[in-house]
């Protein structure tokens, strides 16, 4: 019962969170979504840190910032994190305008969205773990 419930939970979370990723998962690679999510999770955390660092340094290297953000945007869009992606776009605009203040503000938004996403991901991963344990 518990197992089923957990599994269902996982499945529904997956569906709601990653519709495309879900499609990609199949029998040959049952943990695909999980792997990707984990990857993204780690990678994005690292990126966020880098961006933060770059933002805190003076003078701000907008080029680098843009690079980081571009990468971050790419991976979050690939995983389907729409909100994060949108914030990234906004950030990049500020970055292009070399608007330090705007960048910082926008980055806060990015971080926020990312935090929300991270939480969701964490819950997802946890549920997956639980499901696999009970399985």
């Amino acid at each position, binding site marked *: 019962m518990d197992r089923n419930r957990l599994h269902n939970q996982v499945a529904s979370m997956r569906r709601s969170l990653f519709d*495309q*990723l879900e*499609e*990609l998962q*199949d029998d040959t*690679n049952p943990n*695909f979504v999980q*792997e*990707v999510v984990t*990857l*993204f999770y780690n*990678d*994005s955390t690292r990126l966020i840190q880098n961006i933060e660092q770059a933002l805190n340094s003076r003078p701000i290297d907008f080029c680098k910032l843009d*690079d980081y953000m*571009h*990468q971050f*945007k*790419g*991976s979050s*869009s*690939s*995983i*389907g994190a729409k909100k994060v*992606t949108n914030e990234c776009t906004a950030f990049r605009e500020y970055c292009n305008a070399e608007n330090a203040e705007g960048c910082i503000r926008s980055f806060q938004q990015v971080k926020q969205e990312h935090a929300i996403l991270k939480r969701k991901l964490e819950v997802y991963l946890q549920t997956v773990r639980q499901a696999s344990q009970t399985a």
Partner: protein
Amino acid sequence: MNVSSVKGSMSISSSTSTWKAGDTISDQFPAGLRVLVVDDDPTCLMILEKMLTACLYKVTKCNRAETALSKLRENKNGYDIVLSDVHMPDMDGFKLLEHIGLEMDLPVIMMSADDGKQVVMKGVTHGACDYLIKPVRIEALKNIWQHVVRKRKNEWKEFEQSGSVEEGDRQPKQSDDADYSSSANEGNWKGSKRRKDEEEETDERDDTSTLKKPRVVWSVELHQQFVAAVNQLGIDKAVPKKILELMNVPGLTRENVASHLQKYRLYLRRLSGVSQHQSNLSTIISAQDPTFGSLSSLSGLDLQTLAATGQLPAQSLARLQAAGLGRATAKSGIPITLVDQRNIFSFENPKLRFGEGQQQHMTNKQQVNLLHGIPTTMEAKQLVSLRHAAQSVGNMNMQVPPPGPQSSQNNPLLMQMGQQQQQQQSRGQILVDSTINHAPRLSSMGQPILSNGMATNVSSRNGIPENIRAPGYSQTPSMLNFPMNHASELPGNCFPLGSTPGVSNLTSKGAFQEDVNSEIKGSGGFMPSYDVFNDLNQHKPQSWELQNVGIAFDSSQHSNSLQGNLDLTQSALGQQGFSSGQMNGHNRSAAVASKAVFSTGDVKELRSAQNVNQHLNNLLVDNTIRVKSERVCDTSPANIFPDHFGQDDLMSALLKQQESVASSENEFDFDGYSMNNIPV
């Protein structure tokens, strides 16, 4: 595929599973398509890999551009298409794109979360065959096979257009084209749909020929045999069947010969067109040499190849001559070869230059459209320039023959060049392809030019230049490779022409023939390029031809800018060691053109002969790509040539060049290519 396609509506998956009978990829096409995906973002990489696998492709992933390049290099025929991210930490995606285009001539698709117009445009100009915006959806990946098909088709088409003898092939091809391009054919790739039509067979044949045929490598020897057979039969009477019989090469099919013949005819046509402007050719040839070098670099001919080409030149020259003679009215044999060589060189870049340089060099202002035989989809002027280049090349070649010793030298060189060209061609092709990609027009032009064997020339150039120029031909090869080898490879190719006396020959205008010889040498490769062309169809290397064409376009376009730059190039060339003075005025123009081309990108860079060469090459071919290769060659200096020379710049430069008659013929001559400087 044939069998499976018969199945009709099967979906790709079903058919592929059935097809996966250990056939070549083409059989299961598009399933089993060998995709190389490069992205530094691990998340994206993983997702892409999964999606591609879901599309039933055979996926290889790398997270670094260098890794990808080395994988591609060690297994040149191991991949069908490359997907690359734009932003990567170790190497810019566009740079990688250029490399691939030059060296392997594979279709490359760029990806990025960046959907800005500039970036996408950059992708186009650098020769990407598509640009996907991240997040990439699996639907978008389902259709990437179309680029592979299209490319192969285009290769065929070029020949077709040039008046291929194989009418029959054309028919199926055309129908195939339509089918290929339609993504709806996905499942029916092999034309299960087409099956239904009467073209079924032809389609199949087409598919077979384009997709399944194992690539025949038209080595220098093979090409020589081919040419000998053709000459024996008489160019007009040479039919594939008879040629095949004469050649008596086991494993060679009539189809191989037919396609090769097509290319050869195009090549000859070009030569004959060029020959009209013999004078131009000669100049061009000399001028081209430098370009050659650079062109050769296209394929990144290694020194070895270069050395090989050295031998070729003579042979190729001979061949070219034959070809040229057949076509070219004016020059006797070699000049054409030279020209061809030049053309080849210029294939990528020089090609255009050739025309331009030639024009200028040749003293004929008129622009000989190298592409005389080539379908002129290109803009008029481009064609003209190309044509000129072609013609000049042809002329040059023609002229070259006269110098006896040299010719002989050249021929072998040419021959070698051919070989090298092939290598280079692959590079060149890459370039060309890139060029072609960039400019559709170019492609058409490029192709014809290529067919002329310019492509080979280019490649051969690399090899040949060395031979021709100096006793130590090794240099030329570098030159040739110059354009191609943007990366390190060029150095090898960029054989320091300057150092080789042979090179100086080229430069010495006085002896146009000498130049021609050198040209021939370069063109020696030319002939081979012809082969390459054929190979193109079959191999990537052949793309050289295409590239050349592209280059031609570029050059023509850039001729304008070239003119201005010619001076620069001249100086640059001078550095190269080409005795600019030597180069005839014709060459000069070519040189100028090339220079101009270069200058467009980088005036200062032009100063360095090497750069110039490079630039020229780049200009001709594809600005960015070529430049790169050239740059590499330029051991020295300033390889400032901007790798991303920007096609536009090149084009304009080329165009300018065309206009300016001769500013620096000499310079253009190898100087442009700065073979000397070409870092090997």
